[in-house]
């Protein structure tokens, strides 16, 4: 019962947070000197009446706080409003979210599948050739800026012709059979996944190594070893369970990054995800679209943290006891 109480409390805490985040972002966007109509103003064939009409349509003639209130009202009702070009924000987001999720989910799955074992491995084999090699590889991975790496790979794709130059599907995608479609998407995904994978793998692997080393140094591990438990059991039963705790918190953050973590790479690869959409929206000060994506990011972050806390409670009896 305590468990549900705790979750309800956490969810209620979200509300003031959302209000603060939305207030700050709304005012920052609206107070920035970006005028969504600047281009229209410089168009010689646009008349003043047309400009006035546009100003009215985009609510720019009202004071900022009224704009905010009208946005907040419809947001609470679940209506995300329209983009400045007149499309439904919800529809625009719905078009892009699956693509971004596909990319980030694959990347997170792969990095965890590879990163955690590698971290454990280099902690166990501390100061050996294996550990050094992994250190060098992860340093390289951490040092390369993602957009630079992405551009290099894109050039590689164009020169060799082995991979398509960005995008998610070929133009004749709909004529392929199921496996054709599968192969087409896979081919398009290889390069962006490689970029994101290399970069997040390094961090994860280093983190896991450090956690593991810390635990391996502790007294209870020495005690377990002294008791004569097999090394295998020491590592997986005693050390790992303790070392994994900080990683679960990290998983919560990764969850938050599911929708926003890949924007830069998406842009370079012309991947049809949320990154490109939101970048364009920010440039044009398309307020409803920007606000929707910011709110989405905030909610994902909060959900991620909540998820991590719940997982921690399951994994760690100490935390359960403390509450």
């Amino acid at each position: 019962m305590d468990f549900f109480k705790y979750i309800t409390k956490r969810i209620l805490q979200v509300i003031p947070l959302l209000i603060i985040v939305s207030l700050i972002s709304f005012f920052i966007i609206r107070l920035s000197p970006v005028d969504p109509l600047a281009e229209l103003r410089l168009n010689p064939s646009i008349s003043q009446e047309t400009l006035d009409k546009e100003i009215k349509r985009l609510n720019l003639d009202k004071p900022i706080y009224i704009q905010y209130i009208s946005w907040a009202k419809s947001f609470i009702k679940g209506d995300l409003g329209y983009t400045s070009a007149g499309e439904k924000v919800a529809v625009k987001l719905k078009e892009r979210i699956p693509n971004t999720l596909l990319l980030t989910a694959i990347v997170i799955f792969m990095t965890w599948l590879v990163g955690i074992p590698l971290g454990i491995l280099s902690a166990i084999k501390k100061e050996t050739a294996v550990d050094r090699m992994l250190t060098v590889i992860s340093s390289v991975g951490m040092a390369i800026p993602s957009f630079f790496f992405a551009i290099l790979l894109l050039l590689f794709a164009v020169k060799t012709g082995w991979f398509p130059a960005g995008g998610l599907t070929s133009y004749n995608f709909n004529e392929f059979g199921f496996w054709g479609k599968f192969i087409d998407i896979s081919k398009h995904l290889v390069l962006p996944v490689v970029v994101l994978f290399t970069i997040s793998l390094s961090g994860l692997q280093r983190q896991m190594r450090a956690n593991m080393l810390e635990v391996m140094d502790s007294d209870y591990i020495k005690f377990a070893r002294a008791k004569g438990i097999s090394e295998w059991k020491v590592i997986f039963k005693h050390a790992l369970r303790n070392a994994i705790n900080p990683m679960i918190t990290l998983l919560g953050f990764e969850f938050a990054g599911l929708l926003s973590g890949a924007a830069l790479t998406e842009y370079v690869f012309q991947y049809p995800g949320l990154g490109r959409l939101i970048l364009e929206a920010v440039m044009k000060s398309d307020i409803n679209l920007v606000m929707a994506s910011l709110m989405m990011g905030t909610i994902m972050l909060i959900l991620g943290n909540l998820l991590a806390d719940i997982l921690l409670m399951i994994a760690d009896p100490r935390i359960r006891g403390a509450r």
Partner: protein
Amino acid sequence: MKRFITTIIVISIAGLVLVACIKRDVPEKVSVKFKTPDLEEIIYPADEKNVTIDGVDYLQSQAPCGKFGGELVISTIGEGPKTFNPCNTKDATSSTMAGMMYDGLVTTNPRTGRVMPLLAKSVEISGNDYIVNLRQGVKWTDGTLITADDVMYTYKEIVFKGYGNPSAMDAMKVDGQLPDLVKLDNYTVKFTTSKPFAPFLRQLSYPIVPKHYFKPYSDKGESVFNAFLTPDTNPKEIVSGGAFKLKEYVAAQRVVFERNPDYYKINLKNEKLPYLNKLVYLIVGDSNNEILKFEAKEIDALALRGSNVARYKLKEAASDYIIYNLGPDTGTLFLVINLNSRRDKNCKPYVEPKKQCWFLNRDFRAAIDWAIDRESMVRNIASGVAEPLFTAESLNSIYLNKYIKGHPCDLDVAQKSLEKAGFVLKNGILYDSCGNRVEFDLYTNAGNLEREALGVMVKQDLENLGMKVNFKPVEFNSLVNKLTNTHDWDMAIMGLTGSPLEPHDGKNVWTSSGSLHMFNQRPAGYAIDDRFDWEKELDKIFSEGALKLTYEERKPLYDRYQTIIYNQKPIIYLYSPIRITAVRKKVKNVFPTSLSGLLYNLDEIYIQ
């Protein structure tokens, strides 16, 4: 010792790799003077003809007959179309896409720029009456006939009500009055304007939409209509009438069109056009990605920019593409000088009084004009892919004043002009007759690399005259705000896109009450007549020019306006970019023109 050797080896390997990279990456310093006479070599087909077969009025293309089938893949930069509703397009991509699906009554002749019939069989003009005869037997994609009712609906219930993009309504107004429109019979309508208005005929290029498909939405009010035909509409439901119909839209990836099997254009063998089975627009985010896609052979045509032109030209012989020089663009880049001598609400002058004395002096402005080195701007900033510009009309305009030849950069002439205006040069520093140092600000929008580079060159050129120029790139919106609202600027580098067909579109820039009369912006509703004589003449030219109906009558007027601007120099033109495009050799029936670009005749193009 071992560690030392390892370090050395690693460093030298890294060094070698770097050297190898650098050698490859330094671009070849080829500055081509791009003077290909490409367009003159092209043999253009004759103009299209009306042909009636079995009671259907077809439009016969005179281009060589081609092969049916095949697909053409081209690209559009940005985030793709925002709507397929041809009445509600507010950006270039959306209007291109919607234009594919809906035709207007008339269109522009791609070579001469004159108006020619499209969905209309003919337009008879007598006085203020425009009688439009429609083609008989032409159908929408659902088999319904296109009749006068559709035309009546499009104009009366969409354009005249200001639905969708309201600029169409603005353009139809003559002296603030909408034209009369009556239906004469099922295939004839008549427009009557309140007085003769030359730009009116071209407004009939507004896309005609099917009444039976659009009316249920427009009846529900403007907001429902504006949300109609958004890109996520199911393509099977859409009723259209253009050469291509929508097959598929995938957000941020592509728009696919397929041929309309029942289009009213036919080839010389009387077979129905278009040739292409499929037309694919890939949506690419920026021009770099477009280049990559062209290199990876994913797209068939590419607009080339600046430094790329030389590289592509060198590779052209051994490649599968042809490069066309489409000539100067409609875009113009210019230096505008603030001639505003008014005061704001607090009686503070917008421009410092001493600067007003300089800027209002014609000789001062002329000195600036003579000191600017357009040739080296073209060479260094545009990589040779531009033409120096001296006229207010763009170089491909059909109203271009060919007698304005321009002049080379000449510092002596500039200095003489300054002396004449009473300026004194002491130790390389320029002072005015009251002993004030000549110093002013030059603005442009930050982030636009071309304009920033132009700003630096203008600054250098003017510093040769002893002026001190504070070059300040500012954010685009703040610049627009300065130009249109606060007026507290001295000079600015800007660009505008004009219309090569209709000089009257520039009336907001040139008439003294215009909303973009940047160089001497008056507040809205300004009642005092403080126009310069030449501003009065410009006002007169623009009001008269619109009333004259024939090209021959209008040309001298618009020639005169360009002469005035050239002589008075409130705006000093710098250059116009040249458009260079590459298209694969397998694409046939390509007849590029300077007015309409490369692929305007998609219904005649075929793939070999």
